């Protein structure tokens, strides 16, 4: 089920995003090539908008976003196939009534037998086999997030962007999801307030008031963030 190790380049060049006349991101330029990248910063600093740029959910008002050689404006469809996105609230991401059906949705268009075997494999891998046919709304918060993650991983994306994937989880499930994300062979961008999780990444970027403030090793960037928070 897992994709092969495939670390590519994520490049933002002079990117600006505005909403209703308000600058959400301003003149962000960065090139990221690490496998596991943490994105940290205060609430409203532009982290989530940055994450959404990588999947084409948000298009830049100025500048250019290139992910694995795909331009987010020109190659949006191809980009979405290559970049999986995990939302903070898994409830928003679960689109079908049951876990098995939701996973199958990600594989629509594939032969039925292939869908059945891959869905069964994904359910087993994430400990959801016995929950395959229960209403998704009956899953626990941790199970919902695992399902949301599984529905992304089953498509074998080369880049996974997770927007605060552990925020709504208890400690055990938070660790489980963090471990899962960090163990993936594909490139991962994790937006998080969990500085322990950020510290386990290979690279980190810090946003503040819509600007990219720092990029570098997680230790340095976290220290910068702590220093600014007082």
């Amino acid at each position, binding site marked *: 089920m897992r994709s092969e190790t495939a670390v590519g380049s994520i490049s933002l060049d002079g990117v600006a995003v505005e909403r209703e006349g308000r600058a959400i991101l301003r003149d962000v330029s960065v090139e990221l090539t690490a496998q596991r990248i943490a994105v940290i910063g205060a609430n409203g600093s532009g982290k989530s908008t940055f994450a*959404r740029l990588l*999947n*084409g*959910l948000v298009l830049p008002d100025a500048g250019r976003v290139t992910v694995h050689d795909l331009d987010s404006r020109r190659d949006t*469809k191809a980009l*979405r*196939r290559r970049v*999986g*996105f995990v*939302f903070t*609230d898994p*409830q*928003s*991401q*679960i*689109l*079908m*009534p*049951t876990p*098995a*059906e939701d996973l*199958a*949705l*990600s594989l629509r268009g594939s032969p039925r037998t292939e869908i059945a075997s891959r869905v069964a494999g994904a359910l087993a891998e994430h400990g959801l086999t016995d929950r395959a*046919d*229960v*209403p*998704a*709304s009956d899953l626990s918060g941790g199970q919902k997030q695992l399902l949301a993650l599984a*529905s*992304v991983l089953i*498509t074998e994306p080369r880049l996974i962007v997770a927007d605060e994937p552990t925020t709504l989880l208890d400690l055990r499930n938070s660790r489980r999801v963090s471990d899962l994300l960090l163990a993936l062979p594909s490139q991962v961008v994790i937006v998080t307030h969990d500085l322990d999780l950020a510290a386990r990444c290979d690279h980190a970027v810090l946003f503040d008031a819509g600007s990219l403030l720092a990029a570098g090793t997680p230790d340095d960037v976290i220290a910068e963030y702590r220093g600014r928070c007082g």
Partner: protein
Amino acid sequence: MIQSYRLGASIVHRMSAGPKLALFAVLALVSSAYPHDGWSVTVSLVVVCTLYLVAGLPVRVLIAEIWRLRWLVLVLGTALWIFVSPLTAWISTSRVASLLLLAALLTITTRMGDLLAVLHRMLRPLRRLGVDADAVAMTISLTLTMIPVVAGFAHAVREAQRARGVRPGLRTTVPLMVRTLRHADEVGDALAARGLV
């Protein structure tokens, strides 16, 4: 009357979704169109209840389904009893209850994905008329998925209001609508992120 699928190995469960849907549709049509009297409608109701047992479902599932109909039975039955006759009340209420129990049995014994696949196949010929079978199937599926989600929002809003000493009332609908619309936005993003739109 959209109930969740319950795993099972009965003949009703094993039947393919297409033939099962056709059979249930025929049963429903016959039950609706037949000029029932008091006895025949009772037989019809008993047959539907027996189908629950044939499907290997515990009796409590049947009781729960009947219990869900209590308000409908009460309102419809009482109105007909008062304004028409007790016999008409029994015939009409039993007829409606049979149909709804049959519909519930279909969704209890058939995976939603299988039903949607049948619907998708049925809609395919309408492509020439501009009907997008994928979009229709996805819309129905999303609607079914969102029912418990919105119910959860309503519960959360009620609890929040109770916690602040606000009486439930019409004002409940405003935060519920805001929350539901916000969720709809998020679902739209999720659809886009998964390349579905």
